[in-house]
């Protein structure tokens, strides 16, 4: 997995020319590798810095994309790495968003304080949704999660005293203003929201990175690739699936809390229908299933492409064009954008992991 943690940056420029080797040799932990990682982070920092200078409307749009990216990071844990198709992540997003919304509106809590609660409810509901995955998989599991996605808005409507029913919840602006200690004013709210959403995304990605490096991450992928063999080698399949759903639910719940703060108004018909779940799945597939940077690219595509197309084509036509473009992307890059970039990166760069014995001569 080391190749996916390193962004495929064009690092070849600074490397000494090696005419004999077609592939660049990159030893993990070497100075060159460290410089590359440092350089990548520098690029990320510069991009973030540049983003903070965007006009408020654009910054808001970017925050929306960052929230979607976080939700896709969550979906990736279950569907990408554990191989369990979930069409119910719109509901998990909604659980997180409504946890924050309800606690702020009904109990007058500060939104930031409600974030852990949103993560927790997301994780709990995620674990609950994961229970059927012990017994069923594939399309049957998709059906169960689909039921959750369909039921969730109705549950919201059925509890008007708590959720505001059809009209939903509106978080008063005073709760969404940046806290005094930040030195930001109410006018800086888009920047504050953006920084919050970005932190949530980074924390989620860091968590997934840690999980993938751990035995749990290997177990998840083993369960995805061959459940019976995984079990034969000591993987507790049921526990692995439930943990994957729990982590996934927690991250998606976090995305929901960010969504509540970013939008400020929640309603059943808004962001939590089955359409949102499909948007998240499309983003995951387009960006690259089971890649760590895929969710970022996928979110960018599903958030920005419709906007760009609406500028080009008026009315219904843009939706059709969007669909057509998605089909083209999937045909050209079935492994997703980042999946394809990873492949190209591996063709050009030979990443040598730690502890690898010195290369031996090719057998005759």
């Amino acid at each position: 997995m080391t190749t996916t943690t390193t962004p495929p940056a064009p690092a070849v420029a600074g490397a000494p020319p090696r005419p004999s080797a077609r592939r660049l040799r990159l030893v993990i932990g070497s100075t060159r590798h460290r410089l590359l990682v440092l350089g990548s982070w520098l690029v990320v920092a510069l991009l973030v810095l540049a983003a903070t200078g965007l006009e408020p409307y654009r910054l808001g749009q970017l925050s929306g994309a960052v929230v979607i990216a976080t939700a896709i990071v969550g979906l990736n844990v279950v569907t990408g790495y554990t191989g369990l198709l979930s069409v119910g992540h719109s509901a998990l997003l909604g659980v997180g968003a409504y946890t924050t919304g309800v606690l702020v509106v009904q109990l007058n809590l500060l939104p930031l304080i409600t974030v852990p609660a949103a993560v927790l409810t997301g994780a709990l509901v995620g674990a609950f949704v994961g229970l059927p995955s012990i017994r069923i998989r594939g399309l049957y599991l998709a059906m169960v999660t689909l039921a959750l996605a369909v039921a969730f808005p109705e549950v919201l409507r059925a509890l008007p005293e708590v959720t505001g029913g059809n009209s939903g919840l509106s978080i008063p602006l005073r709760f969404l203003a940046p806290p005094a200690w930040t030195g930001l004013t109410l006018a800086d709210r888009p920047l504050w929201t953006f920084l919050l959403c970005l932190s949530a995304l980074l924390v989620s990605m860091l968590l997934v990175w840690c999980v993938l490096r751990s035995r749990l991450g290997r177990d998840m992928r083993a369960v995805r690739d061959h459940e019976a063999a995984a079990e034969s080698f000591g993987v507790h399949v049921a526990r692995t699936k439930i943990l994957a759903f729990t982590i996934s639910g927690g991250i998606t719940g976090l995305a929901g809390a960010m969504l509540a703060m970013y939008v400020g108004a929640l309603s059943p018909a808004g962001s939590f229908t089955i359409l949102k779940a499909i948007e998240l799945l499309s983003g995951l597939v387009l960006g690259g299933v089971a890649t760590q940077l895929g969710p970022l690219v996928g979110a960018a595509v599903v958030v920005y492409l419709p906007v760009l197309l609406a500028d080009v084509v008026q009315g219904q036509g843009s939706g059709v064009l969007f669909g057509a473009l998605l089909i083209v992307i999937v045909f050209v890059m079935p492994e997703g954008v980042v999946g394809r970039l990873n492949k190209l990166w591996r063709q050009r760069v030979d990443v040598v992991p730690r502890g690898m014995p010195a290369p031996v001569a090719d057998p005759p």
Partner: protein
Amino acid sequence: MPSTPVAAPPAHLRIDRLTLEFGGVRALSEVSIDLAGGGIIGLIGPNGAGKTSLLNCISGFYRPTSGDVTLDGRSVLDMRRHQLAGQGIARTFQNLALFGEMSVYDNVAAGAPRGRRRLRGVPGLRPPGTGAAERDAVWAMLERFDLVQHARHPAHGLPFGTLKRVEFARALMARPRVLLLDEPAGGLTHTEVDELGGLITDVVRDLAPVVLLIEHHMGLILSVCSRIVVMDSGRTIADGPTEQVRHDPAVISAYLGGGADLAAR
């Protein structure tokens, strides 16, 4: 994890009057094999004799209708399938059962014994050195099986013979006390089968597991096994030292339709 010889006595696997029925069909009837003393035991017999069914009962994939399988006196039938690895039972599969999208390295590492290590993925929180020991063991195993050059390649897409080695390496990572091999030579070339025989004898010298080897390749069976169990129609029809079994008329007739020596195959 250096591969030093294990001083502990070999595992005692015992199959006791094992019967397995699917509906009205008896896949196994009253099969009893005592594998005391260890070594490499060949399990042969025509297709449909129940060899793989027996393996699947030992490794928890099938639940026998009656009878028992014990490891050092403890029944393994009560254990959940994922617990068997912890008891030292490892197996390979007749048709490869690898983790296709995972790298060869990760496939082999997945066989490593599962200690009580927590938070290994979190930098700074894991105990120092825990990752390195396993990593070195995996690389040593890959080197031994000539898999280093494939280590970072996903399992799918590699040649069949290579994948067979990956499966064998994964099973050995667990340092098993009982190793169940289901047709490891199937689909391999002549040279590969010879190498496999060498590997199996090496493993037994280093780890001293009980090896139950299902194989149709008689050359391999005769060269590595000290004892052969012959099955036919769900029963054991012969069980004894290799030299004795290969000349057993009942075995020859069941296996070849009579008139030939097993070694002639």
